[in-house]
C-alpha cells in the first residue's frame, strides 16, 4: 500500500493486499482496508474504479464470474473468507447484499421477507411471522405494509421495494449488510427514508455502502474510502474526507475538478 490509512475502531473486516483480475485486467490493485464494526463505511469513486467489485468480494459474489481471479485475503472476524473450508452459503447469510435496482421476488411481501429463513429450514408460522415483523420494522417498512403483507411485493413503490430487499437481507440476521448504490433508482424522499433507516441499522449491523452520491456518503457514513482506477486513494473519517482530504486526487474528485 502506498499510503498510510487510518486505523478504525473494532475492525470486523480486514482486506489485505487484495488484487482482483477480470481475465487479464487488473481491477483491484492491492487494496488494504479495515471496516469498523457497527459503523457505516462508504466507498466512493468514479465509474470503473473498483468499488462495486470490492464489495462483491466481501460475500464472494465474484465467484460467480468465471474469469475472476483473486490474490490477497479478506478476513471477517479474523477468518479468511477465501479459505476453501469456508461455507459460502453461510458466508452470504452473514454478509447480506442489496443491489442498485430493487429486485423483490414476484411473491407477497411476507414471502419475500421470510424467503431466506424458509430456505434454511424454518417453517413454524409463528417464528416466521416474528421474523417478518422484526425485519420489516428494522427496514422501517412495517407501518406502511402491515395491513397488506399478503399482497404482491411488486405492487409497492420503488423505495418500498428497496426496503423489502433490505428486510429480506435482515431476516437472515446478517452481521454485515452490503449495499451497492441502493438509492440511485429512488426519489429523494425514498432516499431519505433509506438513509435514516441505515443510520438506525448500524446499531445492530455493520453497513458498507457503495454510492455515486457523495452527499449521501457525507450524510450517513462514519468512514469513507475513495477509489480510483482500482486503487484505494484515501480512506479516512468521513468528515475529514469531505472537509480536508489529504490526497489531491480525492480533493479533485469531490470538488468536481476531476476529469
Amino acid at each position, binding site marked *: 500500500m502506498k499510503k498510510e490509512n487510518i486505523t478504525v475502531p473494532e475492525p470486523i473486516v480486514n482486506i489485505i493486499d487484495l488484487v482482483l483480475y477480470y481475465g487479464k485486467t487488473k481491477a483491484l490493485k492491492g487494496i488494504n482496508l479495515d471496516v469498523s464494526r457497527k459503523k457505516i463505511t462508504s466507498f466512493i469513486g468514479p465509474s470503473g474504479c473498483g468499488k462495486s467489485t470490492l464489495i462483491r468480494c466481501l460475500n464472494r459474489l465474484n465467484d460467480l464470474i468465471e474469469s475472476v481471479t483473486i490474490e490477497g485475503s479478506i478476513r471477517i472476524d479474523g477468518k479468511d473468507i477465501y479459505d476453501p473450508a469456508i461455507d459460502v452459503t453461510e458466508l452470504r447469510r452473514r454478509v447480506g447484499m442489496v443491489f442498485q435496482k430493487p429486485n423483490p421476488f414476484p411473491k407477497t411481501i411476507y414471502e419475500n421477507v421470510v424467503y431466506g429463513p424458509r430456505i434454511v429450514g424454518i417453517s413454524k408460522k409463528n417464528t416466521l411471522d416474528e421474523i417478518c415483523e422484526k425485519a420489516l420494522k428494522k427496514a422501517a417498512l412495517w407501518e406502511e405494509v402491515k395491513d397488506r403483507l399478503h399482497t404482491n411485493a411488486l405492487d409497492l413503490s420503488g423505495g418500498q421495494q428497496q426496503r423489502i430487499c433490505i428486510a429480506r437481507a435482515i431476516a437472515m440476521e446478517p452481521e454485515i449488510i452490503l449495499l451497492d448504490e441502493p438509492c440511485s433508482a429512488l426519489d429523494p424522499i425514498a432516499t431519505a427514508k433509506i438513509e435514516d433507516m441505515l443510520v438506525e441499522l448500524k446499531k445492530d449491523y455493520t453497513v458498507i455502502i457503495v454510492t455515486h452520491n*457523495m*452527499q449521501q456518503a*457525507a450524510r450517513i457514513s462514519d468512514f469513507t474510502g475513495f477509489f480510483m482506477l482500482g486503487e484505494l486513494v484515501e480512506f479516512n473519517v468521513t468528515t475529514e474526507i*469531505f*472537509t*480536508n*482530504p489529504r490526497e489531491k486526487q*480525492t*480533493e479533485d474528485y*469531490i*470538488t*468536481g*475538478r*476531476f*476529469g
Partner: protein
Amino acid sequence: MTREAYHKALKNLEDDVLQMGDMVADAIRKSVEALQKRDINASREIIKNDLLINKKRFDIEEKCISLIATQQPMAVDLRELTSILSIITDLERMGDHAEGIAKINVLLGNEPLVKPLIDIPRMAEIGLSMLDKCLKAFIDRDTEAARRICNEDDQVDALHDQIYRELLVLMMENPRIIHMATYLTWVSHNLERIADRVTNIAERIVFMVTGKMEEINVSKY
C-alpha cells in the same frame, strides 16, 4: 475541469471579496485623511458610503449561501466559502470602524486638535498595508504571508498604547481637553481594532488552505 460554471462562480466570489476589501481600505484611508484635514464633508461621505460596504457584504453572503445550497461544495471549496463568510464579516466591521472615525471627525466639528496627528496616520498606514498583504495572501493561498501579517499587528498595538499614554498625560495636564482627547483615543481604538480584524482574516486564510483552525495572533494580555 468538469464543473466549470461552479468554479467560475467561486472565482467571481473571490473578485467580489477583493472589491469589498478595496472599498474598506478606501474608507479607512479617507477617514484618517479627513480627520487630518478636518474635512467634515469628506467624513459625511464616508458615513454615507458605509451603506455600500454593508450592501456588498450582503451580496457576497447571498452568493455564498446560494452556492452552498445549489452546488454542495466540498473540501477546499467548502472551506473557501465558509472562510469568505467570515472574512466579509470582518471586512464589514472594519468598514464600521472607518465610519466610527468619520463620525468622530463630524463630532469634533471645527475644534482645533489638541496635538498634531502623527501616530494615528502611522497606525492607519500599517493597518492598510496589512490589509493589502492579507488580500493578496487570500488570492495566492499564501499561508506564510498570512502568518507574517499577524506579527505586524504588534506594531499597531504598540502605537495604540503610546497614543493612549500621551493623551492621558495631556488630559491630566489640561482637563478642558478631555472631551477631544477621549475622542482621539477612540480613533486610535478603531484603528487598533481594524488591524486586529486583519489578523482574523489572516487566520481564516490559514484555515482555508490547511483545514486547521489555529490562533495565530495571540493576545499579550
